[in-house]
Each structure stands twice: as structure tokens, then as C-alpha cells.
């Protein structure tokens, strides 16, 4: 084992990757909430949330050590705001840096904030295929936070609403 890395014993079951250009974003809040909720339904290991904003790049990509965190996960949540009608370039950069079939056998969950109703399908049209391309199984509905829902429920309220439905999806997640 490399002296400069952690023991492989830490294996988060749920990892969320957040690609929002702003720190402390609502995307981060939603992703952390749902990741934490799913993780506690799956066991005791806390989820790990990788907030990509401000993480340094190496040869144009994120640190390969971050990929290690994804490798052990059962569930990978890819979270982004809508940017130019699609998901963010920041998230794309992370996904591009993953090895081929990095998400094989894992459940991928797209999560996006849609400013306008016409962006509600961006998660299904753009983000879901990217996760499928990496080998993920996307057996749950995409999590789309409409601006109107965020305004009425708040981020916490929306997470709770999602988690109330999550029992059904979790039954589809391979152990």
C-alpha cells in the first residue's frame, strides 16, 4: 500500500459529486441531504460528498485519488445546476476523468436543479446518458428540483419529499 494514501478500509456506500461553480450552492445542499439520507438507509457508513468547486486540476483533470472514492460506492449521485440547457462543464470534467466503465454495477442517480420548467428534462436527456455510458445502472427517477418546488418546500423540504419516495427506488438498488 502506498504510504501516502489512506487505508482502503473506508468504503462509502453513497458518493455524491457536485458540479456547481459556486461554493455552498443549493446543489450541494440537495446532494448532501439526499446522499446522507440514502446512506443511512443503506447502513451506518456516512456518505461522501465531493464538492468540485475550488478543487485543483492536474493535467486538466481532477485528482485521480478522487476516483478512488467513487470506486467503492454502491450509489453515485451526479448533481449539477442547469447550465446552458445542460449539466455543468465542471461535472462533465469530473465524469470525463473517470476510467472507462467506472460506474459499472453501481446505481447512478442524476440530480439537477431546473431554473425553468423547460429544463426539467435536462437530467434525463443529458446527464442520465453520461452515467449510462460509464456503466451505471440508472434504475431510479432523476431527481429534478424545480425552482418553484425549491421556493415552496426549501432544499430540506425537497430532500425529505425525495426520501419519502426513496424506499421504492432502494429496493431496486443491488446490494
Amino acid at each position, binding site marked *: 500500500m502506498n504510504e*501516502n494514501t489512506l487505508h482502503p478500509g473506508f468504503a462509502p456506500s453513497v458518493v455524491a459529486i457536485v458540479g456547481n461553480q459556486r461554493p455552498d450552492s443549493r446543489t450541494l445542499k440537495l446532494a*448532501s441531504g439526499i446522499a446522507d439520507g440514502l446512506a443511512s438507509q443503506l447502513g451506518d457508513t*456516512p456518505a*461522501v460528498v*465531493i464538492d468540485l468547486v475550488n478543487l485543483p486540476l492536474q493535467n486538466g483533470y481532477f485528482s485521480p*485519488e478522487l476516483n*478512488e472514492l467513487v470506486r467503492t460506492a454502491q450509489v453515485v449521485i451526479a448533481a449539477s445546476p442547469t447550465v446552458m440547457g445542460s449539466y455543468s462543464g465542471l461535472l462533465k470534467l469530473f465524469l470525463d476523468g473517470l476510467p472507462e466503465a467506472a460506474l459499472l454495477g453501481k446505481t447512478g442517480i442524476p440530480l439537477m436543479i431546473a431554473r425553468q420548467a423547460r429544463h426539467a428534462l435536462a437530467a434525463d436527456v443529458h446527464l442520465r446518458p453520461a452515467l449510462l455510458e460509464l456503466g451505471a445502472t440508472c434504475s431510479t427517477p432523476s431527481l429534478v428540483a424545480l425552482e418553484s418546488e425549491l421556493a415552496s418546500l426549501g432544499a430540506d423540504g425537497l430532500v425529505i419529499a425525495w426520501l419519502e419516495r426513496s424506499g421504492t427506488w432502494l429496493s431496486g438498488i443491488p446490494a
Partner: protein
Amino acid sequence: MPDLTSILAGAANRLPPGAAILGWRDEDGGSVTATAGSFTVLSADPPLIAVGVRSSPDVRILDGIGAFTVEFHEGASGHFECVVENVVSAADHDLLIGRVLAVDLPEQPERRPLLFNRSDSSRLVGHLPSQVPLVEPSARSRLAVRQEVPPEPLATIAVIGGGASGTLTAVQLLRRSAPGLRVVLIERSGKFGPGVAYGTEEEQHSLNVPVGQMIALPDRPYDFLEWVRREAPDTQPQEYLARSTFGRYLVDLLERTIGEADGIFFERLTGEAVAVEPGEAGAPVTVRLKDGTEVEADRVVLALGNGRPSPVPGLDPGLVESDRYVADPWGDEALEPALADESVLLIGTGLTMVDVAISLGGAGGPEIQAVSRHGLLPRAHVDTMPVRGRPVALPDDRCSLTELTSRLLTEIAVAGARGEDWRIAFDSLRPITNDLWSALDPRDRKRFVTDLGRIWGVHRHRMAPRVALRLERLKVNRRLRVRAASIERAALDGDRIAVELAMSNADVGERLVVDRVINCTGPTWDPRRSDQDLVRDLLSRGTIRPDGLGIGFDVDRDGALIDSEADASDRLFAIGPLRNGVLLETTAVPEIGQQAELLADLLLAGLVRVLGSSRELSAA
């Protein structure tokens, strides 16, 4: 030989407000120098200097390293050898306050002092903390106002347990109390000071913290280093010494403090406390010893040290009852018989196992198998000075277990990509661990203990480098085998022991035949599982209750015992590992030293009407 105070006063007279060159070793052992634009002698007693340096990551790293020199004369002589006392951030500069350990003054006072000059400074080579003989530290500060010593004690504090936590509590009471206090230190072994942890005679049993960070007295952080340097002047702050050295230091510290504590009545009492009777409110507490002795005290501190390991599931009762099973490797000569064995099984792979494997791993010792669910060994310290970075997380409103693990793991991944050490990110949390821990909600604390405790432990509680090396040698020579497995069943089989293992990573079992099974799962403090008469007595009276996680005694922020009615006691307190469920870090000397200081102040404040105010400690 003039003392340090007068040398320093003389030096201050010769110094214009001028420049200085700082020198220290970085974490890779390379030399680093920095120019200080201002330099002044801050205080002669205690000997403190201050230098102003431009803020840089180097200075923050220096804060963690501890030792540096200040060169104030041109040429390679004339310098102070210092340890960092404090770093104060002042706009774009940091004010570095150093405690002077040694002074090297040039022979000719006419030699030109260093004045700030950019072009000149480049050719100067800073001194490195080195072999400069240590000047005898100034004598401990005396009472500011000598009070009359009463003929009889005015109040009594009993400390149960004379190991590290009990001894440090007694030391702080002796240092801080006004005359008239009686301190009774009760220890069943009759050895006052080292306790089990630092009583090991084995030279191979190393401290897991470098000498510069073994801070027993928070107001004198380098007391241990200075004490070691009296015998071994070359000792560096980053060295790992034998645990017995710290044990001897504790004995000496207690002796010294008793000698200096005028007007305090100090008693050592050898015997096992078996009951504590709180009695009516306002009346004294009675501590009863096994031999019938009774001590009446106004306050009682439980300093019971580490608990015994928990029982291991899967062991046949016949084996557990036999002498082939060692329930507690720290018991007196518990490991003696195993030295003659052919093979032994150690249950647990943490620091306790490491100590036991090293004790048994000498020439002619048994073949050692070690198992735990994860099969993870503690990580090793790196053989350089420790570095402290900016904390990766703070105990704010976002402090959840998910947030903390995410921040820590992301930071470590990024550090790894930069070729930096994960230990820096990990250790950045050390000073605030207990704050983070108390900011977590109870559900997160429980999740941490069930799931992350082990993985946290192996990274956080590391082995000294030479211990790691020895362990590696045992593994390479096939004397030690470590596996991830749990014990399905272990029972006596003829004159040996048959063990069935369930491997953690595979759906298969394995059979072993060994001569002895040793419980190395490490200390715990669930009072319900204790076999100590005293703990049973306290539990049956409802004086104590387990904490929410069942790994220690329930206490409040000050260490006051919380009883079965959820009320915090005003007379009974706990220190050290007993506080384990309420604090995450409470077993290492720096934390216990801090607790002892705070607890002593709290106890003395409670007795102020009887004793008068505490003595001033001018060596702040």
C-alpha cells in the same frame, strides 16, 4: 554559571531593535531560513522572545514543528534556541513567540548585531536547532504572596488512581492550591506515577507521540523535553522515546511538585478503593479501601485509567476460564507464559496488539497470528517533525458526519495528488476533535463509533516509526501474520486450542491450532462490564451511569459524574479514559494534562471559601 534570566537580560541590553534570521528544519529534514524584520526579548522569566515574520505557509508549518533558532549577530554565532510558544497573526505578518531553551552569545560583544538589510541577509546561514547545551531552566516561580500554613488541613481531595491521569491531577492540585489543602492519592499497585500505560519496562514499547508533543503541563509544554534533555541534551522534539521514560518523568514530576508545594498536605495511600459513599449533601464523601481504611474527602476524582478489554464472542467458556486465555495483556506478567509457546493468537490488530506482538516477537518467541474484523494495522508516523495544517473542517452549523468525512477525504485526495502527506489533513483536526465531536448529533456519533471508529483509529492513533519497522520485520520473517477475520469458535482441544476463523473477505472458514489466545481488542470503559469492585459499587448506588454509547462513564463538560437520575455531581469527578463516550480524544497525555489543569481549577474554585484563592502561577 549565571542563570538564563540574567543571560537573557544582558542579551536584551545589547540588542538594538533589529533583524534576525530564523532557522528550522522542515518536515523532510531540510533547512529553512526566514528573515525577521523585528525581534525582541519579550520576557526574561519565563524566557520569551518575539519575532515578526511575513506570513507564509512556512511559518504555519513552523508552528507545528516547534523548534527553531534565532540568529541575531552577523556570522554563525550568537543565537537563541527556541520552541514555539504561540503564533499570533498580525495582518500580513505573524508574531512568533518563542520560549528560549538555550542561548549562545558570541565572545566579543562588539561584534555587529544583525540589522535588517535585504542584500546582506542572503549570505547568512541560519542556525539549526542543534546540540547547544541546555541552560538550566529557571527555577519554578515561587508564591507571589506567602500565606500562613494552617496546622491542620482545611479540605481534602481524594484522587483514586495513581497512574498518569491521577498523578497529573494531583500535580495540578499541588501547584495551584492555596496552603491548607490535603491531597490523598490512592493507588492499588503502590507505584505512584507511571500507571499501567507508562509502567512497562519494555524499552521497545514506544511513546506514540513525539517527545515535543508529550505535553503533561499545558502551561509548561516543554517540561518533559527539558527534563529529558538534562540527561540526554541532544534529544530532539520529534523523537519517539520509550514509554518507561515518560513513566520516570511522571514519578519525578510528582516528587518535584510535592517538594515545592509549601503548605499542602500530601499523602500516598496504597490500597484498592472499593466503595465511594457520597453521603448527605454537604457532608464529606467517604472512600472505602479493601483493607477497611476510610478516607473522608470533600471532593473525589476517579482516575481509573484504561478499562479492561471487552470479552470476545466465540470463545468457549472452558477456554476463557483456563490459563490458556489472557483476558487482559496489561495484567501483571500476563505475557510471561506465552513467551515459551509455539504459537499464539492475538485478537485485535490495533496498538495493543502491536505492543504485545513486539513483546512476544523477540528471538525464540512464539509464532504470532493476529486477527480483527478489518485486519487493519495502525498506520505509522513519518520519521520527521510533525506538521500542523489549517483544520479541514470547523465545528460550525454544517458539522455533520457526512460533511466532516467528505471534507477530510476530499482534502486527503487532493493532498495525495500534490504529493503531500495525508497525515497533515488528519492531524489538522487534532486540536478541535472534541469540539467537532460534541457538535455532532447523537445519531452521527453512534454511526461514527459503529462504522468509522476503527478506520479513524488506525489513521489517528499511529505507531512510532521504529515500532512500525519492527512490526514490518516480524511480518517479513513470517513471525507475525495479520488477517481480516472473526472468531467463529475457539475451544480447548487436548493441551492446545482449536480455533475456527471466519474470514471477512471470503465466504470461507479456516482452522488454526494455537497454544494461547490473547485479548488485544484494547481498553474499553463500559461500567456495566467492569469487574472492579469500585465500579460495581458506584453503579449499584446509581452514582454513575454509562454514557449514551456505552464506552465510558457519563460526565458533564467539566468531568462531573452524572448519576442514574441524570444529575451532575458537585463532588465526584472523572478524568482521562473514563470520559471516553463524551469526548473522542481523552486517552492521550496532552488531552489528559489539559483536563487535569481545568479540573484542578474547578475543584479549587469550589473550595475557595475554605481554602482561599489559588496561588498565582506566574510562569503562564
